[in-house]
């Protein structure tokens, strides 16, 4: 009987659900996470505005990590494969997730890309999200950490305008810092804005052009690798020897 609006209609029943609307995505993300843990790879969800320098940071990361770390990436792109082409040229094994008009990656898209990915021996796997400071923050992809790029040409108040994105960030990379001498950019102002929206606000200043700060960024990544490499027993059990999926596929 309807007890909500008081109409007393005997055929209207309240069904209690109390679940996240994106619970399907959450379940798929948990599955991706066990993939990453099973492979001992550190997965990073790299987000930021279009043009914030996500691809350029990865190119610089590859240069600095050459011979030390095996890097992989999938790039979310609305229409082209240009980012993956750039990353492959820079030595990062990469593929593209073409999203069409979708403004973000979700866990299902990443899972599909993982199963068609040409390599399974990567140390760090970057999920370069679609350039967007709103939608990508909502979807868990199975990553170990969220990293948000913010370029100095975007303005110091971006974190206050897009609090959800920065609240979810484990690290902010302030990019293109080589341009600061040409701008009226106030680093203290962006630090203050971050402190109001990001718990444990943590920002590194980097330049893909000069290489400034890239070593500190690599060190931040390295510090997170042991947790990814030490596989929890359930991750190993999940993928070895038999592999429990509800769908047929091949691992490459």
């Amino acid at each position, binding site marked *: 009987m309807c007890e909500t609006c008081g109409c007393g209609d005997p055929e209207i029943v309240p069904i209690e659900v*109390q679940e996240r609307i994106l619970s399907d995505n959450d379940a798929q993300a948990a599955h991706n996470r066990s993939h990453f843990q099973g492979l001992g790879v550190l997965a990073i969800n790299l987000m930021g505005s279009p043009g914030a320098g996500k691809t350029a940071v990865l190119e610089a990361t590859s240069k600095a990590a050459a011979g030390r770390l095996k890097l992989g990436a999938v790039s979310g792109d609305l229409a082209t494969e240009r980012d993956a082409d750039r990353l492959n040229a820079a030595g990062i094994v990469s593929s593209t997730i073409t999203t069409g008009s979708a403004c973000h990656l979700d866990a299902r898209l990443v899972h599909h890309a993982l199963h068609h990915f040409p390599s399974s021996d990567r140390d760090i796997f970057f999920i370069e999200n679609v350039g967007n400071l709103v939608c990508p923050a909502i979807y868990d992809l199975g990553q170990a950490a969220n990293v948000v790029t913010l370029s100095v040409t975007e303005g110091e108040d971006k974190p206050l305008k897009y609090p959800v994105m920065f609240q979810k960030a484990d690290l902010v990379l302030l990019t293109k810092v080589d341009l600061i001498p040409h701008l009226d950019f106030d680093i203290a102002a962006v630090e203050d804005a971050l402190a109001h929206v990001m718990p444990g606000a943590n920002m590194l200043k980097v330049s893909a052009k000069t290489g400034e700060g890239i070593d500190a960024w690599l060190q931040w990544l390295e510090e997170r690798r042991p947790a990814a490499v030490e596989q929890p027993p359930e991750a190993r059990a999940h993928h070895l020897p038999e592999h429990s999926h509800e769908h047929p596929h091949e691992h490459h």
Partner: protein
Amino acid sequence: MHEYSIVASLIDRVQHEAIAHGGTRVHRLHVKIGELSGVEVDLLKTAFDTFRERTICAGAELAIDTVTPAWACPSCNRSLAPGAILRCDDCGRPARMVQGDEIILERIEMEAPDV
């Protein structure tokens, strides 16, 4: 505009519950949306009005309960003032969100003659 994909997930879920409970028509959905969830309530309503047609949710009302964000210290549980720096003044620890990022389907009111 991820609100459309959220509505698609919402209607899928309602469809599933309707089948499980023998529901024939949905009257009202109650959802809880945090102000820091990244979901715009007005866009969600527009998306729902567009997508509900020709689904089990046709004609259904979307009742949205919005949740104001609240932060507290994970050590001493002290509540932070709205708009404050997200770090405990006493302990120095990063604040933890207590509420405000919800995207939750709470309840479905449906006609279920057999229940």
